[in-house]
């Protein structure tokens, strides 16, 4: 029921917030810092992608749990489409992050715990999608996919959010590095960052809802 948002007010909100993020994110003055310079604006785009991915994967895990409880095929559709959109957001997060790394660390990719964890997280969910593809029976696919999804989600959280904090990492917010919140002295950045997070999460939910509706129509046409 989590995604059963029939009203459209949140879609207007989403459009407004994303447009605001793009405009304000590129135009509002940003703190002048050495090395970071203007790349600090990437905070408005890169970080919300990962928040959005995490929220979507959480939605996916909740729907998998619901599926195991009630065996409603609609829950399975939500679980898989939320995971698909989550993986897509993760790819965008990797791309924006690697662009940022090129201009601050001097390289697109470096062997850093946080970066590797992000790549492994993508692999886990691609394995989930491949696993689902190996079943022909719809019920079996949904049930076993749900079990793998629930097994994978806590591990995903531990590698993305817990383990990189315990080791040495270049990534802001990890390995003793300060996160961006310490840089924005006058909280100007928060005025763009929080709306950006909400806007992109709503966008991800919207994508998922559209994909699920498409799948439901396809199912109806098949039967």
């Amino acid at each position, binding site marked *: 029921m989590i995604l059963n948002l029939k009203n459209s007010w949140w879609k207007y909100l989403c459009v407004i917030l994303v447009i605001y993020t793009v405009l304000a994110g590129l135009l509002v003055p940003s703190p002048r810092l050495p090395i970071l310079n203007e790349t600090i604006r990437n905070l408005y785009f890169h970080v919300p992608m990962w928040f959005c991915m995490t929220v979507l994967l959480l939605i996916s895990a909740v729907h998998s749990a619901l599926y195991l409880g009630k065996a409603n095929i609609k829950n399975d559709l939500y679980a898989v489409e939320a995971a698909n959109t989550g993986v897509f957001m993760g790819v965008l997060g990797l791309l924006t992050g690697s662009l940022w790394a090129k201009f601050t660390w001097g390289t697109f990719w470096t062997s850093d715990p946080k970066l590797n964890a992000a790549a492994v997280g993508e*692999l886990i969910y691609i394995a989930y999608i*491949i*696993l689902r593809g190996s079943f022909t029976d719809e019920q079996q696919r949904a*049930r*076993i996919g749900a*079990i793998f999804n629930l097994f994978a989600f806590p*591990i995903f959280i531990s590698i993305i959010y817990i383990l990189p904090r315990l080791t040495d990492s270049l990534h802001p917010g990890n390995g003793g590095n300060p996160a961006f919140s310490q840089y924005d002295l006058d909280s100007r950045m928060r005025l763009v960052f929080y709306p950006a997070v909400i806007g992109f999460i709503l966008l991800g939910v919207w994508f998922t809802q559209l994909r699920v509706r498409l799948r439901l129509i396809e199912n109806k046409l098949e039967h």
Partner: protein
Amino acid sequence: MATISVFKEIILLVKKDLALEWRQRFAIQSVLLYMGCAVFVCYLSIGIKGSRLIPNTWSALFWIILLFAAINAVTKSFLQEDKQRNLYYYTLVSPQALIISKIIYNSFLVSLLSFIGFALYVGIMGNPIQEMGQFAVCLLLGSFGFSSTFTLISAIASKAGNNSSLMAIMSIPLIIPLLLVLMKFAKNAIDGLPWISSYDEMIQLAALNILLGALSYILFPFLWRS
């Protein structure tokens, strides 16, 4: 009463698995030979005696060999018995007892394999380890983590028609967090750091093991029912 009978079931099931393994020794023999071949390939392709291999490479090769051997050893835990026999177990024992017994049995199997593999590897590639006790703890914790992850994944893979490449793509990304902590712990043991510097790793490994075990325990009944 219920808890007592579950314990009895677990002990019986572990005994049954041990007896089966003992009767069909070719399975464990083949995994041992697999490890032996892998170690020998490493020896031939690197071509130097271990004393000159840098510790990081030594450790990486060892864990990769052990990882694949463990995947091979655990994969068969749900395929050595046919569908009818599994249905028969389903009517006899609770799924919790079954998964716990499989995890215990696989932990035993993988730790046995890891110690034999370690002896083989040290014999051929040399031994840079300074803190043997720590490395042994590392092997034990690692074996338990490998088996509790791979047991559930092998149950999933057995439902998906025993596709071995599916087993690999599902288990390798999921085992990476554990493997990273293990390698760090192993590095400490190789460098001969005191025990106190590895407490963090030990706690992380124990926490990961508990997490993986608990997830398998909760999720397996759903898998078993299908």
